[in-house]
């Protein structure tokens, strides 16, 4: 669980943060905070599906469900056997 959180957080930092001074936590709002835009959310979804070998239905991949690392972890957990 902790590992999953850190994998996702690290991926978000590496891929989406432009400012190396910005710090994000597990609770930082990613979508509404402007760190990840709605178009880039698609690549984040592909990352989650590939990394955790799951398939996330489009209607579950909402801005709210992706709005923090903690939210994403909860979503991914639903789809992991």
């Amino acid at each position, binding site marked *: 669980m902790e590992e999953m959180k850190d994998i996702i957080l690290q991926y978000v930092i590496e891929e989406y943060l432009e400012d190396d001074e910005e710090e994000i936590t597990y609770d930082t709002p990613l979508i509404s*905070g402007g760190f*990840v835009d709605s178009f*880039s959310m698609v*690549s984040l979804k592909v*990352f989650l599906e590939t990394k955790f070998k799951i398939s996330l239905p489009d209607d579950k991949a909402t801005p709210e469900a992706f709005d923090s690392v903690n939210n994403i972890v909860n979503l991914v957990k639903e789809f992991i056997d």
Partner: protein
Amino acid sequence: MSNIGSYEKGIKNFDWSISEKELDYKDGNTINIAWYCSDRICQMGKADKLALIYEGFGGVEKEYTFNDIRLAGNTIGAFLRNLGIVQEDRVCLFMDRIPELYLSFLGVLKIGAIVQPLFSAFGEESLFVRLENAQTRVIITQRKHLSKIRKIVDKLPSLEHIIIVDHKESKSLQKNEVPFNLEDATPVEDFEIFPTKANSPSVLHYTSGTTGQPKGVRHVHYSLISQYLTTKWILDLQDNDIYWCTADPGWVTGTSYGIIGPWSLGITQCVLNSGFSAETWYKFIEKQRITVWYSAPTAIRSLMKAGDEIVGKFDLSCLRHLASVGEPLNAEAIVWSEKVFNKQFLDTYWQTETGSMMITNFPDMKIKPGSMGKAFPGIEAALLDPKTFEPFDEPGRIGLIAFKPGWPAMMTTYWNNNEKFEEKFKNGWYLSGDRSSIDKDGYFWFTGRDDDVINTGGHLVSPFEVESALLEHEAVSESAVVAKPDEVNMEVVKAFITLKPGYEPSDELELKIMNFIRKKLSPLAMPQDIEYMDSLPKTRSGKIMRRILHAKEWGEEIGDISTLEDE
């Protein structure tokens, strides 16, 4: 009572001199957009009225009066002038929607230089081609975007100054980088504004076409005449309104109607610099008591998706007038807005090249949900036969949307590419590149584009640009890019690729390619779907037949394939 009164009244004896008179402008006079947006409003006794209410990340809030924006424009203008920037130099604004973006817009125009606003999510390649094409001398940016600029600055000999609006002393500066913190600068009270004329260039917006690199659409200060009146009559802004245009000034809506229109009318406008969520937006409307809201179909459809229940949690009774732009607004969205906001969104149609609204729905006009509306007074709009380029008026027949040149906000050329500009005109008509039909009552009904350009979330993406960038990925051998239908964004980018020997299709590779394009071009240009192919359909002469792939995505007839390589 709306500003226009009625459409019939608006078109009766219409002349653009209506706008000129209201702005006290006479042919041959000086006309400077920044002066009209700030100094003139102050002279009209509104110096202490709020011009900008800003809300940013982490609850940061700032307010600026018209006198504040006048002083800020002066101060930024003076700073640029001291750097040696003069009239017609290109100054790129590469910032998020922070106050400095809006204030720098005024500062650049005050010295007669040309504003080149670019979307801050652009990757280094998108940024490079636009700066190189415009031979930009200055870029004004934030610390967070510096890394992209530093990667390309050595290839841009014209770029002499990189101004950082939020520099920290603890950070080192590199060659050509200059710190400028507006809050620390001494405000410049008296400033000699450059006496621009009607044909003096003002704004350079880049737009994508099917082939070739993006084109710089050159606008002039006289565009104010259209932008002022269309804002007044269509957005219906009145003195006590609180206005919110959700567009980023990296796109034309964000300057024509997110800066010039409202401020030239002396209207208070709000800016929300945050990501999208239904709750954030509704909360912002409720808190700022927004009365007029100009947004985009993609945002409206996203709000619809968030559901009706969340709307009920906020008091949105302040809203009195709603409008939309960027792509056709579907009838369902209009019906929904009436249900939840008790107001219909008015769809407006125009382009980067037109500079102001052209075909639109009007306050107090009967709306036919799903229709683009009617031509703005003074705009001669027609449908042309695609082969003869002759106008026709049979109801229901689809044709090319075209306009008689001559409205004040029309582009004056494509930067360094007058040949492409000339190609936009046939038989004395400006060709929009879009198709529609017209009904017996004179309402236009959008049917689609006349080329392969992808309209995603109201922004145009060039398939050529994405295809070229894909070929720079080490695994990609060939690429073809088309629009794919999308429930929220209308269209998204889809790529078909073949791989070089030694590479195998996989989800991991798909993700790598997506991120490669996102960083190189922009999130908008990132393929939302990548399909691996053994080969791409080509003509016998070797040209990729994008048309076949597009038809496949949209479930359309493939049409004539007699030139297909393998047939």
